[in-house]
């Protein structure tokens, strides 16, 4: 009997000490710690992993040059699977590990959930991909910055393009039911309705990952829409476009920067020709962007994925601001982010009062000969 008691307490003690050991691993105190949070597993991993790779590349570069302010930069990588509840958990984990700044999160929902926690602890958070307008426009989150334009700006551009340049009258608005896609589609619909110059003949959400989209395609055809404005990411967009073209429909396809991705063209191949997509101002000639993509190819053997350049720019902006501020102090760094221009693959950027990037302009692109060309 006695031995059981002892065994019980021993095992408890072991478990306890393991927990303590895990939780108390102190990190190198002198390094500058950047939290990288986003979806690194699960179905949205393909939007989170490129950011991680971008951060790794930038940090490797900077550390090779001796770090900033004489300190090495260290990444603390956490996976939030794009779920709000996991995001809050890892936000508090990053805080416990005393990060200085956070690169992330990837999805708007997870970002919103985690921001409340970062805000209370005055941690600067910069997302390469969270486009929900409220994040900056509500003024609730002074610690939030992003290197991507918000949904309404993109929707406005898409609608203006369709109305003023293409002079379309009947438009179908589709989205992928996601936070990003649906938000964008709602703005597009709102702007179209307000303009009174075109009719929204169809407003639908498609189910991402569904095995087939023929029914929706038939519906578009039946509605006699001249164009489709699609809010969402490239996998669904390429399926839609391919099916439409295979069914011999020449409906104009206008989409967002979730689609303005080389993968879209490569997946959709010849069917991608003629598709419009909004995206950050042309960076294909920007030597920094080319260098970043090359570095990715060299390190990982493949082309960079979604939001890679945004993340690259965000990491650079964060680290640059820390360097210019001369410390990791919240006020100083925020100030530096708002005043100091930094050279990134997206161009020369700084941030406005609300946290949106200035200098990250948007323009319309069209696929021509297997490449996105800016429409002037």
């Amino acid at each position, binding site marked *: 009997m006695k031995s*059981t008691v002892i065994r019980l307490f021993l095992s408890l003690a072991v478990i306890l000490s393991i927990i303590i050991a895990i939780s108390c691993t102190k990190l190198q105190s002198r390094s500058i710690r950047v939290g990288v949070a986003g979806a690194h597993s699960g179905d949205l991993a393909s939007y989170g992993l490129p950011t991680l790779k971008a951060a790794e590349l930038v940090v490797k570069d900077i550390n090779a040059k001796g770090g900033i302010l004489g300190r090495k930069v260290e990444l603390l990588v956490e*996976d939030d699977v794009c779920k*709000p*509840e996991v995001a809050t958990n890892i936000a*508090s*984990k990053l805080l*416990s590990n005393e990060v200085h700044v956070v690169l992330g999160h990837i999805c708007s*929902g997870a970002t*919103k959930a985690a921001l409340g926690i970062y805000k209370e602890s005055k941690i600067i958070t910069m997302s390469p991909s969270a486009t929900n307008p409220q994040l900056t426009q509500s003024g609730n989150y002074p610690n939030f910055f992003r290197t991507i334009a918000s949904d309404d700006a993109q929707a406005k551009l898409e609608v203006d393009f369709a109305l003023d340049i293409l002079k379309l009258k009947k438009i179908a608005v589709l989205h992928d039911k*996601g936070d990003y896609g649906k938000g964008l589609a709602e703005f597009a619909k709102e702007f179209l309705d307000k303009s009174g110059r075109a009719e929204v003949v169809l407003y639908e959400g498609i189910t991402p990952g569904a095995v087939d989209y023929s029914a929706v395609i038939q519906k578009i055809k039946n509605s006699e829409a001249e164009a489709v404005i699609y809010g969402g990411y490239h996998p669904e967009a390429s399926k839609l476009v391919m099916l439409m073209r295979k069914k011999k429909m020449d409906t104009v396809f206008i989409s967002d920067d979730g689609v303005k991705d080389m993968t879209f063209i490569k997946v959709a191949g010849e069917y991608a020709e003629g598709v419009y997509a909004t995206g950050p101002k042309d960076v294909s000639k920007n030597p920094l962007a080319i260098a970043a993509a090359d570095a990715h190819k060299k390190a990982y053997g493949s082309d960079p994925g979604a939001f890679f350049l945004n993340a690259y720019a965000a990491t650079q902006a964060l680290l640059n601001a820390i360097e210019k501020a001369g410390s990791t102090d919240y006020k100083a760094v925020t100030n530096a982010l708002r005043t100091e221009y930094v050279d990134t693959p997206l161009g020369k950027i700084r941030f406005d009062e609300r946290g949106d990037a200035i200098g990250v302009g948007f323009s319309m692109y069209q696929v021509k000969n297997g490449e996105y060309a800016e429409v002037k």
Partner: protein
Amino acid sequence: MRKLSEIKKSFLASIWFMFLTFPIMVIRVNPIEKVVEWRWRNMVFVGVGSFILSFVWRYMIRQKESGLKKNRADDRHKTPFIQRVREERRLFIPLIAVLSVLGVSFPFIFSAYQVNIMTTALMYVVLGLGLNIVVGLAGLLDLGYVAFYAVGAYTYGLLNHHFGLGFWAVLPAGAFMGALFGILLGFPVLRLRGDYLAIVTLGFGEIIRLVLENWNDFSFGPSGIANIDRPSFFGAQLSLQNATVYIYFLMIAIALFTVFVVNRLQNSRIGRAWVALREDEIACEAMGIDKTKTKLSAFALGATWAGMMGVLFAAKTTFINPASFTFLESAIILSIVVLGGMGSITGVIIGAFVLILLPEYLRAFSEYRMLLFGAILVIMMVFRPQGIISNVRRTYKFAGINISGEQSK
């Protein structure tokens, strides 16, 4: 001689796995650039790894089988360890004392992150206990339990957003809404059994999520509801740090309350009726138990806890959107119940801690985390199919009379 055949077996296993993993692990194509990458090194890893693992695997299978035989032989003399702990006051009281000291001091020793995940684990304890009523006791396989969780969360989210109602006011409302939806689901599926029930509940869970996702005017769609109030402390709003600790203690209280209620429920008239229904529906009806009422009460009482936890979930994360309520979540809660041991309260508690804390501590393995999680689920089930703590059936003994007839099963 035996050694040689063992090596041969492992060798064959290793060849087999090298063959099996060849296209996925060794070749990586880039169909866009038309490049093929051969990663022969992976093949060596797989070969060596499966060679060693197959030894371990066979050894453990043998252990399990001999264990089973031994168990059968001296079943009556050896009660399981946990049950013995519960029955022996000398063990039970110090254990409880240690656990409560640990529980109380936890937030003061560990970081906010640790407290946070512990709160999450406690939430899953309650969710597991709730689902245990439906699956473990009443034997109704429910794959859409997360729907009630969502109902609770949105009850608080919406009431808080539109009317500014506080956590304490909504907590009972969330529980009530959970129960209501439990009955709503219960009615149409009364006639179904087994896996048909499972797929309908799965569908129900998906329907709730899809409605929340699509019905923008009602639920704000996929962008969710932000800035939900944290629970107030006698009317005062707490800082983030204090709120974390506060929710932790709140959660401990709710978990204890749940354990107490579920325990009482299990031994009550209705609890016995659930078990009877699980064992044999027809015999149960013949004994005069109202099948409809019993099943509905199981659904309703199970869903109540999910509704309550939903409210707490919304209050803890302060943001909700439909992405939190997917089928995988239901699967994890179900795994807690089965892994812990169906019908056993202690089992479910341990199951929840294992399954929720495990992925958190596996974060060290970063990208291999979910791979390991899946593997561990399989391994746990293979080597302990009855769960960590198997539910010991209530047996009654007559002192002095020798029972020789073996109980079936």
